[in-house]
């Protein structure tokens, strides 16, 4: 079996080598050469120039603040989801994944409409308190960036921690209680240590996402708030300084690779949690008995609802208003078949492009992701963790860098992918397969190996055992992974923008183009369609999720 896994590893490495490592290394090599020779001087420039040091420090700072805020908003939510029962609980749990696949350009639009200087929140405050000027200055600053990252990531914290919390055997807590430990002491002494892996794991994930976030910083930061990712984009795309751009990619990748390693390590600890025989007891949230605790919870729910629903409902309302009147005109525009001069193609064409790209990218990312998940769970090769980290590397490389690598490394010979939908689909596949792995891995870990062994002992070949035993058992998990990968591809814009040409436009690019073309109604309408796609995808996932496969680790 060891030899088999070695071959799988080599096969995966060969494929990823062609489409990911080689292009990426050719980019990185530029960051380590000076006049055609190997040199550390570009790297030295990055690490000594005050401007680059400033943006590196700023990236880490905003990621740390985003992580803290995401934990601050996510943990109370996880607590409520774990300890209380209320109508619509499962719907809320499944909705926590929606922000994750919302295209950042849509979130940026929602934030501008809701939190902006003339956004809903300011307008409301001005009319209620009769203020002459907007009281809240949230956007175009560090605050705006951190808030938007929390919008994305707090639901991930909520989901991860809630899943882990519900997995804690209540008997441990009860035993401590029967021995006389009080509430707070039990929380600090038992719950926190048991939740620690989930807390660390989600914090690491949020940190990585915030650290590598591109469209949000681009849209809400302005030039004065620049992260490494935006710095790379600026260096490569506009200053044409590949040398320093590549050196900055090198620094960014080194930082995020080590973070990813921490994440994978903590996630391993997370997976070893033992499930109790019983679930944690829940209390109805809406009962007659009022308490201080419930007041605090009610306040949290109201603030959270405003924070999460405000931007999205702003987009919804904006998409239905044309010149101050309610109208579906914007949606009609989207579904007009004809050539739209603002997009360079028909809006429907961008929908078809998105579907095509999503389909191809899922067809690539699903088998790649499945093989890596099986490799991670089943192989016993020495240094497995490190090999796994190598295979999961795209998780640690920014979308902009991957887009640039595909453009730079695969645009010319031998594949000549420059200017094709395939190039975009390939970039999406590279970006999404780590998430396929993340979905399938816990499913495989939960698979009862004795069933496979039983089939094998009854004479089934490994292939037959795979298709007749393993596949039906993990089938729903694979479907969840496929839907997830597809939805991520549909919403992706950072790599797309590096590879985009007219006629190749996707839905998020259409939102961006419509925004640029001052067609706000149509932009919001297209944005709403993306919100809807994301919503539907995750209701499907949730339904499947309840039929035995946990997609808890999403």
């Amino acid at each position, binding site marked *: 079996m060891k030899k*088999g896994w070695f071959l*799988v590893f080599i096969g995966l490495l060969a494929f990823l080598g062609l489409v990911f490592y080689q292009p990426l290394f050719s980019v990185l090599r530029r960051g380590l050469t000076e006049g055609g020779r190997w040199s550390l001087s570009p790297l030295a420039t990055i690490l000594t120039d*005050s*401007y*680059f*040091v*400033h*943006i590196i420090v700023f990236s880490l700072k905003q990621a740390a603040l985003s992580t803290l805020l995401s934990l601050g908003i996510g943990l109370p939510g996880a607590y409520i989801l774990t300890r209380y029962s209320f109508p619509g609980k499962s719907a809320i749990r499944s909705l926590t994944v929606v922000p994750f696949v919302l295209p950042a350009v849509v979130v940026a639009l929602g934030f*501008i*409409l809701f939190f*902006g*200087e*003339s956004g809903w929140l300011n307008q409301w405050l001005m009319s209620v308190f009769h203020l002459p000027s907007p009281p809240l*200055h949230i*956007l*175009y600053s560090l605050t705006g960036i951190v808030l938007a990252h929390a919008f994305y990531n707090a639901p991930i914290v909520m989901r991860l921690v809630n899943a882990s919390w519900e997995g804690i055997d209540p008997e441990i807590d009860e035993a401590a209680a029967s021995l006389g430990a009080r509430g707070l002491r039990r929380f600090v002494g038992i719950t926190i240590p048991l939740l620690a892996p989930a807390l660390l794991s989600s914090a690491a994930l949020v940190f990585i996402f915030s650290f590598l976030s591109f469209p949000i910083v681009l849209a809400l930061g*302005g*030039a*004065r708030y*620049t992260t490494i990712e935006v710095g790379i984009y*600026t260096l*490569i*795309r*506009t*200053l*044409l300084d*590949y040398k320093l751009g590549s050196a900055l990619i090198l620094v960014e990748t080194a930082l995020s690779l080590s973070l990813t390693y921490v994440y994978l390590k903590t996630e391993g600890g997370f997976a070893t949690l033992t499930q109790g025989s019983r679930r944690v007891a829940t209390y109805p949230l809406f009962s007659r008995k009022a308490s201080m605790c419930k007041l605090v919870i009610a306040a949290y729910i109201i603030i959270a609802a405003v924070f999460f629903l405000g931007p999205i409902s702003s987009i919804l309302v904006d998409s239905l208003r044309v010149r101050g009147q309610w109208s579906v005109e914007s949606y009609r525009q989207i579904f007009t078949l004809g050539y739209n*001069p*603002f*997009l*360079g193609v028909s809006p429907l064409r961008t929908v078809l492009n998105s579907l095509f790209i999503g389909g*191809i990218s899922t*067809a*690539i990312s699903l*088998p790649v992701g*499945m093989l890596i998940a099986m490799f991670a769970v089943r192989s016993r090769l020495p240094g497995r963790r490190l090999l796994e980290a190598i295979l999961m590397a795209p998780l640690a490389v920014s979308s902009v860098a991957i887009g640039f690598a595909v*453009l*730079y490394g695969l*645009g*010319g010979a031998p*594949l*000549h992918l*420059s*200017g*094709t939908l*395939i190039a975009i689909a390939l970039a999406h596949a590279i970006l999404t397969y780590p998430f396929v792995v993340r979905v399938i891995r816990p499913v495989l870990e939960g698979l009862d190996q004795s069933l496979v062994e039983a089939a094998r002992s009854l004479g089934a070949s490994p*292939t037959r*055992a795979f*298709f007749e035993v393993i596949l039906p058992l993990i089938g729903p998990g694979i479907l969840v992974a496929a839907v997830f990968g597809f939805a991520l591809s549909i919403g992706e814009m950072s790599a797309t*923008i590096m590879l*985009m*040409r*007219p*006629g190749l436009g996707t839905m998020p690019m259409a939102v961006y*183009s419509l*925004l*640029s*073309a*001052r067609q*706000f109604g149509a932009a919001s309408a297209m944005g709403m369609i993306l919100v809807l796609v994301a919503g539907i995808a995750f209701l499907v996932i949730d339904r499947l999720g309840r039929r035995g496969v946990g997609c808890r680790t999403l």
Partner: protein
Amino acid sequence: MFNKLVVLFVVALVALAVIGTGKEQLVVYTYQSFVSWGPASVLEEVFEAQYDCDLQFVTAGGAKATLSRLLAERDVSATNADLFMAEVNEIPRIVKYDLFLPVTKDDIPNLAFVPEELLFDPNVGFVPYEYGYISLTYDSRVLSEDELPQSLDQLADPRYERMLVCQDPRTSSTGFSFLLWTIAQFGEEKYLDFWRSIDRTLLTITRGWTEAWTMLSHGEAPLIVSFSTDTAYGAMYEDSIDYRAFAPGGQGYRTVFGIGIVKETNQPELAKAFIDLLLSKEIQEQLPRTEIMIPANLQAELPPEYDEYLIIPEDPLMLPLDLVGDRMDTWLHDWERAIVGK
């Protein structure tokens, strides 16, 4: 055990190999707004009917981003661009990277109608097709005419706090023109002092002009760096002149847009025919309505709204291109460290 998975792999790889082919193409690299606003679709229709070919517009965003994209592709000799449209301040980069074929008046008959003052060295190959002026545009519902700054340095006044949006000179040609304007006005020694003095006035610095306009028209900011044709735009398309261009102290910065033939092209004759069509009276008269710029061809007539609302700064500035070419990198480098990494 993995046979069938291998089959899946092969299917995926075969899908990768599917690459489309078509008839003879002429590929024009341009900026986003030329495709989304400009006469791209009309040009495509007219040109494809006249010369049996497939005319394609390609854009990577603004003029600066598209140039970077083009140079990146040339670097790995993977570009199929035949023509490129750019802002005049890119000429130093175009010369540095030896991008364009020389173009003379004999190649492009319609060049005869373009005034001398807009023309550049024919060896550079930059053919102007429209021009305009960078100025400021304000929301007349927020600021009244007598509240407007009478010169750039008045922008430092606290009453304009969090009101102004400008564009990043590293990523936007509008933003770069504004940076050059401040250098032309305050001098190389003083321009960064001006930028530091408006730190509180600046609400944000956007990547491109379109984001700044988005903020103005969404009520996010009442004052942006924009074009002197904005009032005429409102009169033509919005039925209102709420957003008005003005030239503080009669000043503004001149900007010229031009097109050139990329050296690697296989079809220079077809490319010249395209430039000639772009300079024709028919297409030139589209420019003030779609690009909201002033056409280069003197024969082209302006829409009536331009007679009433077009603002031409009395004292337009424009730094010599040689100087821009020599100092550009230093200016951007210093600006970056003064404003971003402060």
